[in-house]
C-alpha cells in the first residue's frame, strides 16, 4: 500500500486537472474552427469586390447595399447582424468561452483565474439581446432566399448550376440554424406555462427537436456560408468555372 501526502494549495493553476482524457482537444478544435472562419470572413469582408458572378451573390454581401457616401466594403453594412447573432448565440457562447476565454477550458479543468462576473456585467450582459439579432437574421434570411431564387435564373432562363446548389444548401442550413435557436424556441412557446393549443405545442416540439441539434446547424451553416462566399469569389476571379447541371 503506497501512501503519498497531498499538499493542499489554495489556488489552482491554469489547466490543472486529474482528468486523463484529451480534454484539450475540444477547445482546440473550436479555436481552430472559429479562428479560421473569423480570419476568412474578415478578409472577405474587407475585399469589397469579387462578391458576385452571374446570378450568384455571396451571402456575405446579401442584400447588396450600395450607398454613395459609404467608403468601405458593403459587407460591413450587413455582417454585423449575423456576427451579432452568432456572437450572442447560446451554443457559440459555450464554444468561445471554452476555447478563447478558457472560462473554463473544459469541465473540471482549472482556469487559474480569480475574478469572474459571468454575464452579469458589461460587456457580457449584452448577450441578453440575442433575440433582437434573431429578428435581424430572420430578415436577412428573406434576402438570402430571394438570392436562391435568382440563382436559378441564367439570363432569363431556368437553370441549375453548382453555385445554385451551394447557395440553396447555405440558405437551408442558415434557416435551420435560426429555427433551432434557443430564443426562437422561447418566443414560439417556451415563454408560456401552458400552451394555447395543440398546434402550438406541436410546433414547439418540432423546434425543440431541431434545437437539440443546434450545435450541428451552427457548425454546418458556418462552414457553408464561408464556402458559398469562397465559391462565388473563385468564379468572379476566374479561377473556377461553374458547372451547369441543367
Amino acid at each position, binding site marked *: 500500500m503506497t501512501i503519498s501526502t497531498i499538499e493542499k494549495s489554495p489556488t489552482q493553476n491554469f489547466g490543472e486537472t486529474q482528468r486523463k482524457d484529451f480534454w484539450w482537444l475540444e477547445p482546440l478544435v473550436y479555436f481552430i474552427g472559429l479562428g479560421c472562419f473569423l480570419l476568412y470572413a474578415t478578409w472577405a469582408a474587407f475585399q469589397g469586390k469579387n462578391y458576385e458572378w452571374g446570378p450568384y451573390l455571396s451571402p456575405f454581401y446579401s442584400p447588396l447595399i450600395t450607398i454613395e457616401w459609404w467608403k468601405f466594403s458593403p459587407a460591413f453594412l450587413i455582417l454585423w447582424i449575423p456576427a451579432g447573432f452568432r456572437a450572442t448565440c447560446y451554443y457559440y457562447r459555450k464554444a468561445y468561452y471554452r476555447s478563447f476565454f478558457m472560462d473554463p477550458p473544459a469541465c*473540471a479543468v482549472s482556469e487559474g483565474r480569480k475574478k469572474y462576473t459571468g454575464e452579469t456585467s458589461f460587456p457580457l450582459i449584452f448577450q441578453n439581446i440575442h433575440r433582437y439579432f434573431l429578428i435581424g437574421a430572420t430578415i436577412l434570411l428573406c434576402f438570402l432566399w430571394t438570392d436562391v431564387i435568382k440563382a436559378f435564373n441564367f439570363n432569363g432562363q431556368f437553370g441549375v448550376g453548382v453555385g445554385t446548389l451551394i447557395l440553396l444548401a447555405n440558405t437551408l442550413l442558415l434557416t435551420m440554424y435560426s429555427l433551432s435557436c434557443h430564443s426562437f424556441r422561447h418566443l414560439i412557446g417556451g415563454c408560456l406555462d401552458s400552451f394555447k393549443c395543440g398546434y402550438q405545442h406541436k410546433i414547439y416540439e418540432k423546434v425543440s427537436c431541431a434545437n437539440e441539434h443546434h450545435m450541428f446547424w451552427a457548425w454546418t451553416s458556418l462552414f457553408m456560408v464561408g464556402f458559398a462566399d469562397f465559391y462565388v469569389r473563385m468564379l468572379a476571379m476566374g479561377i473556377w468555372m461553374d458547372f451547369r447541371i441543367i
Partner: protein
Amino acid sequence: MTSCTLKKEERSEHYCESHSSMKIATFKVFRGDINGGAEVEYKVPVEEGMVVLDAIHYVQKNISPDLAVRWNCKAAKCGSCSAEVNGKPRLMCKSRLDDFDLSKEIRVYPMKSFPVIKDLACDVSWNFEVNKKIAPFTPKPDTDWKMSQRDIDRVQEFRKCIECFACQNVCHVIREHDLKPKFAGPRFFVRVAGLEMHPLDTADRLEALKDDMGIGFCNITKCCTEVCPEDIHITDNAIIPLKERVVDRFYDPLKMFFRKIWGK
C-alpha cells in the same frame, strides 16, 4: 477469502496472488479530511460487471474498514455516491471498470466543490440551504387540478433529478470561483424551471433568479449537462429557458416598454 488470519493490508495482496488469472486494478483513493490528506494506493481484483463503488466496497471490506464513503442504492437512483473518478464528477455506482484502462491507476477523489468530512464523504448541506430559499409550488386558491399532458411534458424531465450534485460540483462558478453565496447552481435552476414552467404554479421567482440565485453568472458552458447521470438537458431545457424569461422581465426593452403601457 482464504485466510482470516492475515492483516487487512495483506489480504488484498493474498487474494490477488491466489487469483493470479484475475485482472487487478490499481486505485488511488483520497484519504483525509478538510485539512488535507493523502492519496492511498489499493490493489483490487476485477470481476465482470464491477463498478468503482464495488472496488471501494472491496477496499472497505478487505483492506481499510475505516474508509468513509456515502452510498445507498448502488443503482444510480439515490445520488449518494458522487465522487471524482479520474478527475470527472460522476456516480461511482455508474462507473464501470471496463470503461477504464486498467493498466493505469484509477484516481477516486471526493467532490471538489464541497468540504470533505472524511475520505470520499462530503458535506453537501449548503445545497439544502439553497433549496429552502426557493419559493415552493404555489397553486391558485381553489385550483382546478386539471392539466394537459402537453403542459406537463417539459417539467417531467426535471423530476428525474436524483440530487447527486455532480452538476453543482462541476460548475466552474462554484468549483473554481466559489461564488456559493451569490449563485444557486444548476441543480436549483432545474428545480426552479420545474416550478416556473408548471401550468398551475403562480409564484414569481424571476427576480430571485436574477438577484439572489445569480443566474447571470452561468455562462452556458454545459458542463452540468455533460456530467448529469440522469441525462437531464440542464442547460438547454432548464437554464436557457429561465435566462430567456429573465430577459423578458429585465433586459428586453420592447417588452419592458409594452409592460409599462399595458401595466402587466
